[in-house]
Protein backbone atom coordinates (compact mmCIF):
# COMPACT_ATOMS: atom_id res chain seq x y z
CA UNK A 1 0.00 0.00 0.00
CA UNK A 2 1.38 3.41 -0.90
CA UNK A 3 2.00 5.98 1.79
CA UNK A 4 -0.70 8.23 0.49
CA UNK A 5 -3.44 5.62 0.48
CA UNK A 6 -2.25 4.46 3.90
CA UNK A 7 -2.63 7.99 5.18
CA UNK A 8 -6.08 8.24 3.64
CA UNK A 9 -7.09 4.97 5.26
CA UNK A 10 -5.80 6.11 8.65
CA UNK A 11 -7.62 9.43 8.38
CA UNK A 12 -10.76 7.50 7.63
CA UNK A 13 -10.19 5.45 10.79
CA UNK A 14 -9.78 8.63 12.85
CA UNK A 15 -13.12 9.90 11.63
CA UNK A 16 -14.96 6.65 12.07
CA UNK A 17 -13.47 6.11 15.53
CA UNK A 18 -14.52 9.65 16.45
CA UNK A 19 -18.00 9.08 15.08
CA UNK A 20 -18.26 5.82 17.01
CA UNK A 21 -17.10 7.41 20.26
CA UNK A 22 -19.55 10.28 19.85
CA UNK A 23 -22.39 7.90 19.20
CA UNK A 24 -21.75 5.76 22.22
CA UNK A 25 -21.08 8.77 24.45
CA UNK A 26 -24.38 10.27 23.39
CA UNK A 27 -26.26 7.88 25.64
CA UNK A 28 -23.70 7.91 28.45
CA UNK A 29 -25.01 9.57 31.61
CA UNK A 30 -21.53 10.15 32.97
CA UNK A 31 -20.47 12.07 29.87
CA UNK A 32 -23.59 14.20 30.03
CA UNK A 33 -22.83 14.96 33.66
CA UNK A 34 -19.21 15.87 32.93
CA UNK A 35 -19.82 18.14 29.97
CA UNK A 36 -23.16 19.69 30.86
CA UNK A 37 -24.34 19.26 34.43
CA UNK A 38 -21.17 19.69 36.47
CA UNK A 39 -19.77 22.68 34.52
CA UNK A 40 -23.10 24.52 34.49
CA UNK A 41 -23.67 23.97 38.21
CA UNK A 42 -20.16 25.19 39.00
CA UNK A 43 -20.74 28.15 36.68
CA UNK A 44 -24.09 28.94 38.29
CA UNK A 45 -22.40 28.90 41.68
CA UNK A 46 -19.65 31.20 40.40
CA UNK A 47 -22.16 33.56 38.76
CA UNK A 48 -24.03 33.92 42.03
CA UNK A 49 -20.75 34.53 43.81
CA UNK A 50 -19.97 37.21 41.22
CA UNK A 51 -23.07 39.32 41.78
CA UNK A 52 -21.31 42.43 42.99
CA UNK A 53 -18.25 42.07 40.77
CA UNK A 54 -17.84 43.69 37.39
CA UNK A 55 -19.11 42.02 34.22
CA UNK A 56 -15.55 41.34 33.01
CA UNK A 57 -15.45 38.45 35.41
CA UNK A 58 -18.33 36.66 33.69
CA UNK A 59 -16.28 35.48 30.72
CA UNK A 60 -13.60 34.39 33.19
CA UNK A 61 -16.12 32.05 34.82
CA UNK A 62 -17.31 30.76 31.43
CA UNK A 63 -13.77 29.84 30.40
CA UNK A 64 -13.04 28.32 33.81
CA UNK A 65 -16.15 26.12 33.74
CA UNK A 66 -15.38 25.08 30.19
CA UNK A 67 -11.91 24.07 31.27
CA UNK A 68 -13.32 21.88 34.06
CA UNK A 69 -15.42 20.06 31.47
CA UNK A 70 -12.40 19.55 29.19
CA UNK A 71 -10.24 18.28 32.01
CA UNK A 72 -12.81 15.95 33.57
CA UNK A 73 -13.52 14.34 30.21
CA UNK A 74 -9.81 14.06 29.35
CA UNK A 75 -9.17 12.36 32.67
CA UNK A 76 -12.10 9.99 32.79
CA UNK A 77 -13.14 9.32 29.21
CA UNK A 78 -9.93 9.76 27.21
CA UNK A 79 -8.03 8.03 30.00
CA UNK A 80 -10.27 5.04 29.44
CA UNK A 81 -9.75 5.01 25.67
CA UNK A 82 -7.70 1.80 25.78
CA UNK A 83 -8.68 0.17 29.06
CA UNK A 84 -12.35 0.49 28.14
CA UNK A 85 -11.73 -1.58 25.01
CA UNK A 86 -9.98 -4.12 27.14
CA UNK A 87 -13.00 -4.47 29.39
CA UNK A 88 -15.36 -5.00 26.48
CA UNK A 89 -13.02 -7.47 24.84
CA UNK A 90 -12.70 -5.32 21.71
CA UNK A 91 -9.04 -4.43 22.21
CA UNK A 92 -7.87 -7.72 20.71
CA UNK A 93 -10.08 -7.11 17.69
CA UNK A 94 -8.54 -3.64 17.26
CA UNK A 95 -4.99 -4.87 17.64
CA UNK A 96 -5.68 -7.55 15.06
CA UNK A 97 -6.34 -4.96 12.36
CA UNK A 98 -3.66 -3.28 10.27
CA UNK A 99 -4.56 0.08 11.86
CA UNK A 100 -2.08 1.22 14.53
CA UNK A 101 -3.80 1.48 17.90
CA UNK A 102 -2.81 5.12 18.41
CA UNK A 103 -4.80 6.09 15.32
CA UNK A 104 -7.93 4.71 16.96
CA UNK A 105 -7.11 6.53 20.21
CA UNK A 106 -6.58 9.81 18.32
CA UNK A 107 -10.06 9.43 16.83
CA UNK A 108 -11.65 8.66 20.17
CA UNK A 109 -9.92 11.51 22.03
CA UNK A 110 -10.73 13.92 19.21
CA UNK A 111 -14.39 13.13 19.76
CA UNK A 112 -14.05 13.46 23.53
CA UNK A 113 -12.34 16.83 23.37
CA UNK A 114 -14.73 18.24 20.80
CA UNK A 115 -17.75 17.14 22.79
CA UNK A 116 -16.24 18.63 25.96
CA UNK A 117 -16.41 22.02 24.29
CA UNK A 118 -20.14 21.70 24.91
CA UNK A 119 -19.28 22.65 28.51
CA UNK A 120 -18.02 26.04 27.37
CA UNK A 121 -20.97 26.62 25.11
CA UNK A 122 -23.43 25.61 27.84
CA UNK A 123 -21.91 27.92 30.44
CA UNK A 124 -21.77 30.73 27.88
CA UNK A 125 -25.48 30.29 27.29
CA UNK A 126 -26.09 30.11 31.03
CA UNK A 127 -24.27 33.42 31.48
CA UNK A 128 -26.69 34.95 29.00
CA UNK A 129 -29.60 33.49 30.92
CA UNK A 130 -28.44 34.67 34.35
CA UNK A 131 -27.21 38.15 33.40
CA UNK A 132 -29.37 38.91 30.40
CA UNK A 133 -26.35 39.69 28.20
CA UNK A 134 -23.92 37.41 26.43
CA UNK A 135 -20.37 38.12 27.60
CA UNK A 136 -17.95 39.41 24.94
CA UNK A 137 -14.69 37.81 23.88
CA UNK A 138 -12.22 40.66 23.53
CA UNK A 139 -9.68 39.05 21.20
CA UNK A 140 -11.67 36.65 19.01
CA UNK A 141 -8.74 35.87 16.70
CA UNK A 142 -6.39 35.00 19.51
CA UNK A 143 -9.19 33.09 21.20
CA UNK A 144 -9.76 30.88 18.15
CA UNK A 145 -6.05 30.20 17.86
CA UNK A 146 -5.81 29.38 21.58
CA UNK A 147 -8.83 27.11 21.41
CA UNK A 148 -7.35 25.24 18.44
CA UNK A 149 -4.15 24.48 20.31
CA UNK A 150 -6.03 23.76 23.53
CA UNK A 151 -7.96 21.05 21.67
CA UNK A 152 -4.77 19.53 20.30
CA UNK A 153 -3.01 19.63 23.64
CA UNK A 154 -5.94 17.89 25.33
CA UNK A 155 -5.81 15.24 22.61
CA UNK A 156 -2.11 14.77 23.20
CA UNK A 157 -2.84 14.44 26.89
CA UNK A 158 -5.47 11.77 26.20
CA UNK A 159 -2.92 9.96 24.05
CA UNK A 160 -0.41 9.83 26.83
CA UNK A 161 -2.73 9.04 29.68
CA UNK A 162 -4.60 6.11 28.13
CA UNK A 163 -1.53 3.86 27.68
CA UNK A 164 -0.32 4.92 31.14
CA UNK A 165 -3.57 3.70 32.65
CA UNK A 166 -3.09 0.37 30.94
CA UNK A 167 0.56 0.03 31.89
CA UNK A 168 0.10 0.93 35.50
CA UNK A 169 -3.11 0.26 37.41
CA UNK A 170 -1.74 2.32 40.31
CA UNK A 171 -1.90 5.40 38.11
CA UNK A 172 -5.51 4.65 37.35
CA UNK A 173 -6.30 4.63 41.01
CA UNK A 174 -5.21 8.25 41.09
CA UNK A 175 -7.82 9.10 38.48
CA UNK A 176 -10.46 10.29 40.93
CA UNK A 177 -7.88 12.17 42.94
CA UNK A 178 -6.61 14.12 39.93
CA UNK A 179 -9.80 15.95 39.07
CA UNK A 180 -9.79 18.79 41.58
CA UNK A 181 -6.01 19.27 41.94
CA UNK A 182 -5.84 20.21 38.26
CA UNK A 183 -8.85 22.50 38.63
CA UNK A 184 -6.69 24.24 41.25
CA UNK A 185 -3.25 24.08 39.62
CA UNK A 186 -4.67 24.86 36.18
CA UNK A 187 -5.80 28.29 37.35
CA UNK A 188 -9.27 27.69 35.93
CA UNK A 189 -11.15 29.92 38.41
CA UNK A 190 -8.44 31.86 40.19
CA UNK A 191 -4.85 32.88 39.40
CA UNK A 192 -2.22 30.42 40.60
CA UNK A 193 -0.57 33.36 42.33
CA UNK A 194 -2.99 32.65 45.19
CA UNK A 195 -1.28 29.29 45.72
CA UNK A 196 2.00 28.78 47.61
CA UNK A 197 5.05 29.47 45.41
CA UNK A 198 6.30 25.86 45.37
CA UNK A 199 3.24 24.72 43.46
CA UNK A 200 3.97 27.03 40.49
CA UNK A 201 6.33 24.58 38.71
CA UNK A 202 3.58 21.96 38.98
CA UNK A 203 1.23 24.27 37.14
CA UNK A 204 3.86 24.96 34.49
CA UNK A 205 4.13 21.29 33.51
CA UNK A 206 0.38 20.98 33.01
CA UNK A 207 -0.87 21.75 29.48
CA UNK A 208 -4.33 22.60 30.94
CA UNK A 209 -2.67 25.48 32.78
CA UNK A 210 -1.28 26.93 29.55
CA UNK A 211 -4.58 26.34 27.79
CA UNK A 212 -6.47 28.18 30.54
CA UNK A 213 -3.90 30.99 30.53
CA UNK A 214 -4.18 31.50 26.77
CA UNK A 215 -7.98 31.34 26.76
CA UNK A 216 -8.39 33.58 29.81
CA UNK A 217 -5.97 36.06 28.28
CA UNK A 218 -7.63 36.07 24.86
CA UNK A 219 -11.16 36.39 26.21
CA UNK A 220 -10.50 39.19 28.68
CA UNK A 221 -8.10 41.17 26.50
CA UNK A 222 -4.74 40.17 28.02
CA UNK A 223 -1.40 41.03 26.43
CA UNK A 224 -0.92 39.36 23.03
CA UNK A 225 2.67 38.43 23.89
CA UNK A 226 1.50 36.53 26.95
CA UNK A 227 -1.16 34.67 24.95
CA UNK A 228 1.37 33.74 22.29
CA UNK A 229 3.77 32.55 24.96
CA UNK A 230 1.09 30.29 26.46
CA UNK A 231 0.31 28.91 22.98
CA UNK A 232 4.02 28.29 22.46
CA UNK A 233 4.15 26.32 25.69
CA UNK A 234 1.18 24.23 24.53
CA UNK A 235 2.98 23.43 21.28
CA UNK A 236 6.09 22.44 23.24
CA UNK A 237 4.08 20.01 25.38
CA UNK A 238 2.28 18.61 22.35
CA UNK A 239 5.69 17.76 20.86
CA UNK A 240 7.10 16.28 24.08
CA UNK A 241 3.99 14.24 24.77
CA UNK A 242 3.90 13.09 21.18
CA UNK A 243 7.38 11.62 21.44
CA UNK A 244 6.69 9.86 24.73
CA UNK A 245 3.36 8.56 23.43
CA UNK A 246 4.94 6.84 20.44
CA UNK A 247 7.18 4.83 22.77
CA UNK A 248 4.40 4.08 25.24
CA UNK A 249 2.18 2.55 22.58
CA UNK A 250 4.94 0.28 21.35
CA UNK A 251 5.64 -0.82 24.88
CA UNK A 252 2.10 -1.55 25.99
CA UNK A 253 1.30 -3.59 22.92
CA UNK A 254 4.39 -5.75 23.25
CA UNK A 255 4.03 -6.05 27.02
CA UNK A 256 0.38 -7.00 26.73
CA UNK A 257 1.22 -9.79 24.31
CA UNK A 258 3.91 -11.13 26.63
CA UNK A 259 1.86 -10.88 29.79
CA UNK A 260 -1.48 -11.83 28.27
CA UNK A 261 -3.20 -8.62 29.38
CA UNK A 262 -4.88 -7.60 26.14
CA UNK A 263 -8.10 -8.81 27.59
CA UNK A 264 -9.63 -8.63 31.05
CA UNK A 265 -11.68 -11.61 32.09
Amino acid sequence: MSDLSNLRANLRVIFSAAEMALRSNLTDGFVFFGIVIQPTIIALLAFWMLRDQGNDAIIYVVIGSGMTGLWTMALFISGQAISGERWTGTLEMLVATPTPLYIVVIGKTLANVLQSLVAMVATYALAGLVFGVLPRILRPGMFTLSLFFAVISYISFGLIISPLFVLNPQVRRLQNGLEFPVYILGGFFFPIALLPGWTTPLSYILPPYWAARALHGASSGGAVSDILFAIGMMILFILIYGMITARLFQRILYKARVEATLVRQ
Partner: protein
Amino acid sequence: MNVIEVSNLRRVYNANVGAIRRSHKEIVAVDGISFHIEGGELFGLLGPNGAGKTTTVKMLTTMLIPTDGSIRILGLDVVRDAKKLRSRIGFIYGGERGLYWRLSGIDNLRYFGSLYHLDPQATRKRIPELLEMVGLSERGEEKVEGYSRGMKQRLHVARALLHDPEVLFLDEPTLGLDPVGARDLRTIIRNLQAENKTILLTTHYMLEADALCQRIAVINKGKIVAEGSPAELKSIVSDLSVIEVEVFGSVDDFLPTLRAQSFVDALSIENREQKQVLLIQSPAGAEAVSPLLGLLAGVRVGKVIVREPTLEDAYIRLVEEDV
Protein backbone atom coordinates in the same frame (compact mmCIF):
# COMPACT_ATOMS: atom_id res chain seq x y z
CA MET B 1 1.42 -27.09 1.21
CA ASN B 2 1.39 -26.35 4.93
CA VAL B 3 -0.37 -23.12 5.71
CA ILE B 4 0.23 -23.38 9.44
CA GLU B 5 3.31 -24.89 11.04
CA VAL B 6 3.59 -25.08 14.81
CA SER B 7 6.70 -26.51 16.40
CA ASN B 8 7.54 -27.08 20.05
CA LEU B 9 5.18 -24.33 21.10
CA ARG B 10 5.24 -23.49 24.78
CA ARG B 11 3.53 -20.83 26.83
CA VAL B 12 4.05 -20.18 30.54
CA TYR B 13 2.00 -17.77 32.63
CA ASN B 14 3.31 -16.13 35.74
CA ALA B 15 0.73 -15.95 38.44
CA ASN B 16 0.84 -14.32 41.82
CA VAL B 17 -0.45 -16.65 44.48
CA GLY B 18 -1.56 -15.76 47.96
CA ALA B 19 -2.80 -12.41 49.24
CA ILE B 20 -0.36 -11.82 52.08
CA ARG B 21 2.79 -13.77 51.30
CA ARG B 22 2.96 -13.30 47.59
CA SER B 23 4.83 -15.91 45.71
CA HIS B 24 5.30 -16.38 42.00
CA LYS B 25 4.04 -19.50 40.42
CA GLU B 26 4.58 -20.63 36.88
CA ILE B 27 1.67 -22.19 35.10
CA VAL B 28 2.43 -24.08 31.93
CA ALA B 29 -0.60 -23.62 29.69
CA VAL B 30 0.86 -25.04 26.50
CA ASP B 31 3.67 -27.53 26.86
CA GLY B 32 5.67 -28.06 23.70
CA ILE B 33 3.09 -28.86 21.04
CA SER B 34 3.73 -29.33 17.32
CA PHE B 35 1.29 -29.73 14.47
CA HIS B 36 0.69 -28.50 10.95
CA ILE B 37 -2.36 -27.66 8.89
CA GLU B 38 -2.56 -27.87 5.13
CA GLY B 39 -4.20 -25.31 2.85
CA GLY B 40 -7.97 -25.69 2.69
CA GLU B 41 -8.02 -28.08 5.60
CA LEU B 42 -10.45 -27.84 8.51
CA PHE B 43 -8.42 -28.85 11.53
CA GLY B 44 -9.89 -29.43 15.00
CA LEU B 45 -8.17 -28.82 18.29
CA LEU B 46 -10.15 -30.85 20.76
CA GLY B 47 -9.74 -30.86 24.51
CA PRO B 48 -11.38 -30.29 27.87
CA ASN B 49 -11.65 -26.85 29.48
CA GLY B 50 -8.28 -25.54 30.56
CA ALA B 51 -6.36 -27.85 28.22
CA GLY B 52 -4.59 -24.96 26.52
CA LYS B 53 -6.78 -24.52 23.45
CA THR B 54 -7.47 -20.82 23.88
CA THR B 55 -3.85 -20.04 24.73
CA THR B 56 -2.79 -21.82 21.56
CA VAL B 57 -5.29 -19.87 19.45
CA LYS B 58 -4.19 -16.56 21.00
CA MET B 59 -0.61 -17.31 20.03
CA LEU B 60 -1.66 -18.33 16.53
CA THR B 61 -3.58 -15.08 16.11
CA THR B 62 -0.60 -12.91 17.25
CA MET B 63 -2.33 -11.80 20.44
CA LEU B 64 0.09 -13.62 22.70
CA ILE B 65 3.80 -14.12 22.39
CA PRO B 66 5.01 -17.71 22.82
CA THR B 67 7.42 -18.45 25.63
CA ASP B 68 9.18 -20.94 23.39
CA GLY B 69 8.88 -22.58 19.99
CA SER B 70 7.67 -21.10 16.74
CA ILE B 71 4.59 -20.61 14.63
CA ARG B 72 4.62 -19.88 10.92
CA ILE B 73 1.43 -19.03 9.12
CA LEU B 74 1.44 -18.48 5.35
CA GLY B 75 5.19 -18.45 5.66
CA LEU B 76 5.15 -15.58 8.16
CA ASP B 77 6.39 -15.67 11.74
CA VAL B 78 3.66 -14.75 14.25
CA VAL B 79 5.96 -12.66 16.41
CA ARG B 80 8.22 -10.98 13.87
CA ASP B 81 5.72 -10.53 11.07
CA ALA B 82 2.66 -9.99 13.26
CA LYS B 83 1.58 -6.87 11.37
CA LYS B 84 1.76 -8.41 7.92
CA LEU B 85 0.03 -11.51 9.11
CA ARG B 86 -2.90 -9.79 10.78
CA SER B 87 -4.49 -8.58 7.56
CA ARG B 88 -4.42 -12.13 6.16
CA ILE B 89 -6.04 -13.99 9.05
CA GLY B 90 -9.39 -13.73 10.76
CA PHE B 91 -10.50 -15.04 14.10
CA ILE B 92 -13.36 -15.30 16.52
CA TYR B 93 -13.07 -16.09 20.18
CA GLY B 94 -16.02 -17.73 21.88
CA GLY B 95 -18.39 -15.67 23.98
CA GLU B 96 -20.30 -12.47 23.61
CA ARG B 97 -17.54 -9.93 24.13
CA GLY B 98 -15.54 -8.10 21.54
CA LEU B 99 -18.35 -6.15 19.91
CA TYR B 100 -19.63 -2.63 20.49
CA TRP B 101 -22.96 -3.30 22.13
CA ARG B 102 -24.24 0.23 21.83
CA LEU B 103 -23.84 0.21 18.06
CA SER B 104 -25.84 -1.68 15.47
CA GLY B 105 -24.49 -4.77 13.77
CA ILE B 106 -23.95 -2.84 10.55
CA ASP B 107 -22.10 -0.04 12.37
CA ASN B 108 -19.84 -2.58 14.02
CA LEU B 109 -18.94 -4.04 10.63
CA ARG B 110 -18.51 -0.64 9.02
CA TYR B 111 -16.13 0.42 11.80
CA PHE B 112 -14.03 -2.70 11.50
CA GLY B 113 -14.05 -2.24 7.75
CA SER B 114 -12.27 1.07 8.16
CA LEU B 115 -9.90 -0.40 10.74
CA TYR B 116 -8.95 -3.04 8.18
CA HIS B 117 -8.32 -0.23 5.69
CA LEU B 118 -10.98 -1.53 3.33
CA ASP B 119 -12.34 0.68 0.64
CA PRO B 120 -15.56 2.30 1.98
CA GLN B 121 -17.50 1.55 -1.21
CA ALA B 122 -16.42 -2.05 -1.24
CA THR B 123 -17.29 -2.38 2.46
CA ARG B 124 -20.75 -1.00 1.82
CA LYS B 125 -21.29 -3.71 -0.76
CA ARG B 126 -19.72 -6.47 1.29
CA ILE B 127 -21.63 -5.90 4.55
CA PRO B 128 -25.07 -6.98 3.24
CA GLU B 129 -23.49 -10.06 1.65
CA LEU B 130 -21.86 -11.05 4.92
CA LEU B 131 -25.02 -10.39 6.93
CA GLU B 132 -26.92 -12.52 4.45
CA MET B 133 -24.40 -15.29 4.82
CA VAL B 134 -24.63 -15.36 8.63
CA GLY B 135 -28.38 -14.90 8.60
CA LEU B 136 -28.53 -11.44 10.13
CA SER B 137 -29.90 -9.48 7.17
CA GLU B 138 -33.12 -8.60 8.98
CA ARG B 139 -31.44 -7.48 12.21
CA GLY B 140 -28.40 -5.57 10.97
CA GLU B 141 -29.80 -2.17 11.90
CA GLU B 142 -30.49 -3.17 15.50
CA LYS B 143 -28.15 -2.51 18.39
CA VAL B 144 -25.97 -5.45 19.29
CA GLU B 145 -27.06 -5.34 22.94
CA GLY B 146 -30.42 -6.74 21.85
CA TYR B 147 -28.85 -9.70 20.02
CA SER B 148 -29.00 -13.24 21.34
CA ARG B 149 -25.78 -15.02 22.05
CA GLY B 150 -25.97 -16.89 18.77
CA MET B 151 -26.56 -13.69 16.82
CA LYS B 152 -23.55 -12.05 18.42
CA GLN B 153 -21.48 -15.05 17.56
CA ARG B 154 -22.64 -14.93 13.94
CA LEU B 155 -21.87 -11.21 13.79
CA HIS B 156 -18.37 -12.11 14.95
CA VAL B 157 -18.10 -14.49 12.02
CA ALA B 158 -19.10 -11.68 9.66
CA ARG B 159 -16.52 -9.40 11.28
CA ALA B 160 -13.81 -12.01 10.93
CA LEU B 161 -14.60 -12.38 7.22
CA LEU B 162 -14.72 -8.66 6.36
CA HIS B 163 -11.21 -8.57 4.93
CA ASP B 164 -11.61 -11.95 3.24
CA PRO B 165 -8.80 -13.68 5.18
CA GLU B 166 -7.12 -16.81 3.88
CA VAL B 167 -6.92 -18.44 7.30
CA LEU B 168 -9.59 -18.52 9.97
CA PHE B 169 -9.33 -19.34 13.67
CA LEU B 170 -12.53 -20.23 15.44
CA ASP B 171 -12.14 -20.64 19.19
CA GLU B 172 -15.12 -22.49 20.70
CA PRO B 173 -17.53 -20.80 18.30
CA THR B 174 -20.56 -22.75 19.48
CA LEU B 175 -19.88 -22.40 23.20
CA GLY B 176 -23.04 -21.58 25.09
CA LEU B 177 -25.30 -21.67 22.03
CA ASP B 178 -28.59 -23.55 22.00
CA PRO B 179 -28.80 -26.59 19.66
CA VAL B 180 -30.38 -24.61 16.82
CA GLY B 181 -27.86 -21.78 17.11
CA ALA B 182 -24.99 -24.26 17.17
CA ARG B 183 -26.34 -26.07 14.11
CA ASP B 184 -26.67 -22.82 12.14
CA LEU B 185 -23.12 -21.90 12.99
CA ARG B 186 -21.82 -25.31 11.93
CA THR B 187 -23.53 -24.87 8.58
CA ILE B 188 -21.75 -21.54 8.17
CA ILE B 189 -18.42 -23.14 9.01
CA ARG B 190 -18.99 -25.90 6.46
CA ASN B 191 -19.76 -23.29 3.80
CA LEU B 192 -16.55 -21.47 4.64
CA GLN B 193 -14.56 -24.59 4.10
CA ALA B 194 -16.25 -25.02 0.75
CA GLU B 195 -14.74 -21.64 -0.14
CA ASN B 196 -11.36 -23.27 0.39
CA LYS B 197 -10.37 -21.36 3.51
CA THR B 198 -7.93 -22.94 5.91
CA ILE B 199 -9.69 -23.23 9.26
CA LEU B 200 -8.59 -24.12 12.75
CA LEU B 201 -11.48 -24.87 15.06
CA THR B 202 -11.27 -25.53 18.77
CA THR B 203 -14.06 -27.24 20.60
CA HIS B 204 -14.77 -29.58 23.42
CA TYR B 205 -17.77 -31.10 21.66
CA MET B 206 -16.86 -34.43 20.13
CA LEU B 207 -19.78 -34.50 17.73
CA GLU B 208 -18.84 -31.11 16.38
CA ALA B 209 -15.26 -32.15 15.70
CA ASP B 210 -16.42 -35.44 14.20
CA ALA B 211 -18.91 -33.74 11.91
CA LEU B 212 -16.71 -30.86 10.72
CA CYS B 213 -13.03 -31.66 10.85
CA GLN B 214 -10.81 -33.58 8.49
CA ARG B 215 -8.14 -33.91 11.11
CA ILE B 216 -8.20 -33.58 14.88
CA ALA B 217 -5.55 -33.07 17.51
CA VAL B 218 -6.58 -33.93 21.04
CA ILE B 219 -4.96 -31.62 23.55
CA ASN B 220 -4.87 -32.23 27.26
CA LYS B 221 -2.91 -30.38 29.96
CA GLY B 222 -1.00 -28.45 27.34
CA LYS B 223 0.13 -31.49 25.39
CA ILE B 224 -1.15 -33.10 22.23
CA VAL B 225 -2.09 -36.64 23.17
CA ALA B 226 -3.33 -37.85 19.80
CA GLU B 227 -3.66 -36.64 16.24
CA GLY B 228 -5.38 -37.99 13.17
CA SER B 229 -8.60 -38.17 11.20
CA PRO B 230 -11.79 -38.88 13.16
CA ALA B 231 -11.67 -42.46 11.85
CA GLU B 232 -8.08 -42.90 12.96
CA LEU B 233 -8.90 -41.63 16.43
CA LYS B 234 -11.85 -43.99 16.64
CA SER B 235 -9.54 -46.89 15.85
CA ILE B 236 -7.79 -46.30 19.16
CA VAL B 237 -10.79 -47.85 20.83
CA SER B 238 -11.87 -50.16 18.00
CA ASP B 239 -10.76 -53.27 19.85
CA LEU B 240 -12.92 -52.29 22.79
CA SER B 241 -16.59 -52.30 23.58
CA VAL B 242 -18.39 -49.84 25.75
CA ILE B 243 -20.63 -51.07 28.53
CA GLU B 244 -23.16 -48.56 29.80
CA VAL B 245 -24.61 -49.35 33.21
CA GLU B 246 -27.38 -47.22 34.66
CA VAL B 247 -27.05 -46.94 38.42
CA PHE B 248 -29.13 -45.19 41.07
CA GLY B 249 -27.50 -43.64 44.13
CA SER B 250 -23.83 -43.16 44.84
CA VAL B 251 -21.29 -45.60 43.40
CA ASP B 252 -18.20 -43.64 44.37
CA ASP B 253 -17.07 -46.34 46.80
CA PHE B 254 -16.97 -48.92 44.04
CA LEU B 255 -14.88 -46.95 41.57
CA PRO B 256 -11.36 -47.89 42.78
CA THR B 257 -12.24 -51.61 42.75
CA LEU B 258 -13.77 -51.33 39.28
CA ARG B 259 -10.81 -49.45 37.87
CA ALA B 260 -8.46 -52.14 39.19
CA GLN B 261 -10.13 -54.90 37.16
CA SER B 262 -8.22 -56.26 34.21
CA PHE B 263 -11.29 -56.06 31.96
CA VAL B 264 -11.77 -52.34 32.64
CA ASP B 265 -9.65 -50.12 30.39
CA ALA B 266 -11.26 -46.79 31.12
CA LEU B 267 -14.17 -45.69 33.25
CA SER B 268 -16.19 -42.53 33.41
CA ILE B 269 -19.49 -41.40 34.89
CA GLU B 270 -22.21 -39.41 33.22
CA ASN B 271 -25.10 -37.81 35.06
CA ARG B 272 -28.46 -38.19 33.38
CA GLU B 273 -31.37 -36.76 35.32
CA GLN B 274 -31.83 -38.69 38.56
CA LYS B 275 -29.60 -41.56 37.56
CA GLN B 276 -25.94 -41.96 36.75
CA VAL B 277 -24.43 -43.96 33.94
CA LEU B 278 -21.15 -45.80 34.29
CA LEU B 279 -19.28 -45.91 30.98
CA ILE B 280 -16.80 -48.75 30.97
CA GLN B 281 -14.45 -49.43 28.09
CA SER B 282 -13.54 -53.06 28.02
CA PRO B 283 -11.80 -55.46 25.61
CA ALA B 284 -13.99 -58.28 26.93
CA GLY B 285 -17.24 -56.86 25.57
CA ALA B 286 -20.44 -58.60 26.62
CA GLU B 287 -18.50 -61.17 28.63
CA ALA B 288 -17.51 -58.48 31.12
CA VAL B 289 -21.11 -57.73 32.04
CA SER B 290 -21.71 -60.45 34.58
CA PRO B 291 -18.44 -60.05 36.58
CA LEU B 292 -19.11 -56.31 36.48
CA LEU B 293 -22.59 -56.65 37.94
CA GLY B 294 -21.16 -59.01 40.55
CA LEU B 295 -18.84 -56.26 41.72
CA LEU B 296 -21.74 -53.81 41.92
CA ALA B 297 -23.61 -55.97 44.42
CA GLY B 298 -25.90 -53.87 46.56
CA VAL B 299 -26.23 -51.05 43.99
CA ARG B 300 -29.56 -50.55 42.24
CA VAL B 301 -28.79 -51.13 38.59
CA GLY B 302 -31.05 -50.18 35.70
CA LYS B 303 -30.51 -50.72 31.96
CA VAL B 304 -27.24 -52.29 30.79
CA ILE B 305 -26.09 -51.79 27.19
CA VAL B 306 -23.05 -53.04 25.32
CA ARG B 307 -22.22 -50.95 22.25
CA GLU B 308 -19.56 -50.01 19.70
CA PRO B 309 -17.19 -47.20 20.72
CA THR B 310 -17.65 -43.69 19.29
CA LEU B 311 -15.23 -40.81 18.85
CA GLU B 312 -16.34 -39.61 22.24
CA ASP B 313 -15.15 -42.83 23.81
CA ALA B 314 -11.80 -42.39 22.12
CA TYR B 315 -11.64 -38.90 23.53
CA ILE B 316 -12.56 -40.05 27.04
CA ARG B 317 -9.86 -42.64 26.85
CA LEU B 318 -7.23 -40.17 25.67
CA VAL B 319 -8.08 -37.60 28.28
CA GLU B 320 -8.56 -40.13 31.05
CA GLU B 321 -5.27 -41.93 30.49
CA ASP B 322 -3.49 -38.77 31.32
CA VAL B 323 -5.25 -38.24 34.65
